[in-house]
């Protein structure tokens, strides 16, 4: 991969906002988007008049049950009569939103960009699960009546087989993240649980139990992203976007080694190169790897090169990824603890790193000093990788 970047401006995040993450929100999708956007503007000390462009992220239209969600969410997201873009790479969307906002600002096209992500999964009945049926290939997969969890179970099993990890080793991610979420006011499923609780929860698709999975969630998150000049005017503590990366693998996941996320690794290499990071395992201080499933955090830690392939589960057991550990991962509580409103969940992770790098994360603040951070999100048929590297 070669990128020929012409970057005009350095770009920073100067404000973030988030709604409560919950199953069944009273507010409509655009009301949720507005709540998050308003908070992000308030934190930046800006108003809509200061916003030049808006980027909206929302995953499949089918979840909210409203078609063309970019248009639907535009007014709540403050995009009226402004250049507006909606980006969408399934679960990868949450991090693709700030990536796209970065293009807008780094190119000089816009000074200040409002980046908003929203998802409301509860409207789909009896279960949003059934909506996922339509991402499988209609001719060669769908006749087998696949359930979406099959895909993740197949990846988890492959990871277990290739890396020698047991279910109980992987369940520790869920234990860690749900516990971290106890300190997060946005969290939907924060809890003090044990590995045993995970193993005894409802068995869905072996090796996946219910507590290995993030829940069905409604919610929104937003960031204010701006160029260097404006950032220095509005705050003493901007958080810089040092690198971004995004790649897509093909949809033929049945032709791939599922134990390692290549889609992410290429995106991570792109982001690190841009950020001038050569040894991410040493240079990154805190990470928010995308964790809709517990094994997925380990998978992504390895794809992000924060651990060697097949080593993440061993480091996890040693406490390496705890909030007071060597390299804290998902101090927010992650999707497993905070919840999974798909696009908003990915953006929540970037917002968390923003607060961590400004030492504003309260009880969630990691123990060690933090300078560099990385978040990723992942989407579609195990193929989309989006990465962002931040610094203070």
């Amino acid at each position, binding site marked *: 991969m070669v990128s020929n970047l012409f970057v005009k401006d350095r770009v920073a995040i100067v404000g973030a906002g988030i709604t409560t993450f919950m199953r069944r929100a009273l507010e409509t999708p655009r009301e949720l988007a507005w709540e998050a956007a308003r908070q992000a503007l308030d934190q930046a000390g800006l108003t809509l008049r200061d916003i030049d462009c808006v980027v909206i992220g929302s995953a499949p239209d089918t979840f909210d049950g409203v078609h063309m969600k970019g248009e639907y969410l535009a007014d709540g997201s403050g995009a009226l009569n402004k250049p507006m873009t909606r980006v969408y790479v399934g679960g990868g969307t949450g991090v693709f939103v700030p990536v796209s906002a970065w293009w807008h600002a780094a190119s000089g096209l816009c000074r200040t960009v409002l980046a908003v992500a929203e998802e409301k999964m509860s409207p789909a009945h009896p279960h949003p699960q059934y909506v996922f049926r339509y991402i499988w290939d209609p001719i060669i997969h769908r006749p087998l009546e696949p359930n979406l969890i099959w895909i993740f179970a197949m990846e988890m099993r492959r990871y277990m087989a290739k890396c020698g990890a047991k279910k109980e080793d992987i369940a520790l991610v869920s234990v860690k993240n749900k516990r971290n979420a106890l300190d997060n006011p946005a969290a939907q499923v924060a809890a003090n649980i044990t590995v045993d609780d995970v193993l005894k929860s409802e068995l*869905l698709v072996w090796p996946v139990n219910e507590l290995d999975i993030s829940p069905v969630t409604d919610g929104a998150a937003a960031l204010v992203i701006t160029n260097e000049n404006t950032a220095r005017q509005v705050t003493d503590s901007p958080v810089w976007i040092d690198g971004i990366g995004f790649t897509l693998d093909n949809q033929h996941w049945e032709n791939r080694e599922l134990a390692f996320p290549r889609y992410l690794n290429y995106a991570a290499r792109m982001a690190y190169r841009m950020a001038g990071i050569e040894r991410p395992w040493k240079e990154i201080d805190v990470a928010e790897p995308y964790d809709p499933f517990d094994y997925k955090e380990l998978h992504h830690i390895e794809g992000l090169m924060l651990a060697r392939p097949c080593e993440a589960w061993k480091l996890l057991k040693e406490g390496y990824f705890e909030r007071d550990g060597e390299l804290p991962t998902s101090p927010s509580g992650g999707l497993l603890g905070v919840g999974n409103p798909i696009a908003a969940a990915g953006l929540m992770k970037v917002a968390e790193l923003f607060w961590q790098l400004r030492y504003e994360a309260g009880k969630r603040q990691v123990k060690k000093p933090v300078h560099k951070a990385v978040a990723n999100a992942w989407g579609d048929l195990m193929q989309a990788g989006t990465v962002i590297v931040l610094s203070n």
Partner: protein
Amino acid sequence: MSAKEGARLPGTKLSAKEMYSLLGLVESSPQAKYEFSAGPTISRFLQGLKEGKILGRRCPRCGRIYVPPRDYCEYCHVALTDWVEVPDTGTVQTAVVSYISVRRERLEKPEVVGVIKLDVPGYKEGSYEFAGLFHRLCIDPEEAKKDSTIGMKVKARWKPAEQRTGSILDIECFEPVR
């Protein structure tokens, strides 16, 4: 406000009961039907299944053999011209046991599915890509959970010729080679 401790975040949580007593709650379902075309390449592949053969396509430039077949090489971006019949045997890459249906209802009988890496030459041991299929595995669920399932040799169990329709289901499942 930065999701700080004690800060009340916006958003109103509803219980299921409150949800269903909401004024203005409406139910709606899309009434959409689709007719998918398999395309020239997958159509030929399905015809092969009907004849009891698994067909792949070879890239004239890089030599990769694709199963499921493609019309073009993803890496070289050239047309794939050669059809090859590949063995209906392979090894289990991954296997899972589903206790839920596509609608997330509990299944009476759990189902075993996985990915089979087919015995197709040209892919080195341990290479990231390979020719393979996603399918059912005729393995007892308890046996499927054993470590020995990964890497197990399997072979396609075909439906009787007169029952085949040109579908991925013309293969009933992949069963262990004993």
